[in-house]
């Protein structure tokens, strides 16, 4: 199956805006974050197909995962 990963802001550095991951069944956003060498703490908003997703959601072929870093300044 093929998953599209959309990265935002600082998460693009060295990785680009969009990454495709092809994998057998059972892939989760946690696996994707690990594969892309992103620290879990650097992910704030995690969307699966534009909706709030969880790290352990099992993904399906064609799913789109979006990852945003935490922003907290004022």
């Amino acid at each position: 199956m093929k998953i599209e990963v959309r990265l935002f802001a600082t998460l693009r550095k060295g990785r680009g805006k969009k990454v495709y991951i092809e994998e057998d069944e059972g892939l989760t956003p946690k696996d994707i974050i690990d594969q892309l060498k992103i620290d879990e703490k650097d992910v704030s908003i995690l969307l699966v197909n534009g909706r709030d997703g969880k790290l352990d959601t099992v993904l399906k072929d064609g799913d789109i995962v979006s990852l945003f870093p935490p922003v907290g300044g004022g």
Partner: protein
Amino acid sequence: MKRYIKNMNMLTKEENDRLGKFKVCVVGCGGLGGYVIEMLARLGIGYLTVVDADKFDETNLNRQILSNTDTLGKSKSITAQERIKLVNPLVEVEPINKRVTKNNCEDIIKGHDVVVDAVDNIDTKIILQDTCSNIDIPLVHGAIGGWYGQVTTIFPEDKTLDILYVSRDKKGIEKELGNPSFTPGLVASIQVSEVLKVLIKRGKPLKRRVLFIDTFEQEYEVIDV
């Protein structure tokens, strides 16, 4: 009143008059807060409570509109009050020279129609959300970091920050990137437009939607959460 003529065509006369009766609490008088306070006062919001325990220092000069060579070393909240006296003396400003904590938050924000999150750390943002939710006050959240920013409007039932900052020990990207001169005004402007819509109950606030701003690639995403 002549002062508000340019507000008049986008607001009704009745809405304009009503603005003078609202109470808004702005927590944080730094990067975001300085601009938010200025814009709320020029709109004619009648009562502003402005909260900050800090004094201006040299590192604020690159972006905090209330900081300048005259206000270095002065209390941020009192500087905000003095500025608004010059801008719009019709607005009553109460400065509170305190850091918001779990223990004092309710006392500071109760009685306001809207609270604005202009603080610079995730812990205090969550305290604001949880207290606003408990005592039924809408919160307009804003945050900045480097080239990036975000805004969302949180009604008491939403708890949107629980999605934005899933694990509460998160460190924002601003700790690494700092904040430039241009994101505070941008994010603050959007926050003020949200405050206005909540007050007049017209327009579509960012309820359970997060506007994520990227000025590096100039991309603006509205995400449903």
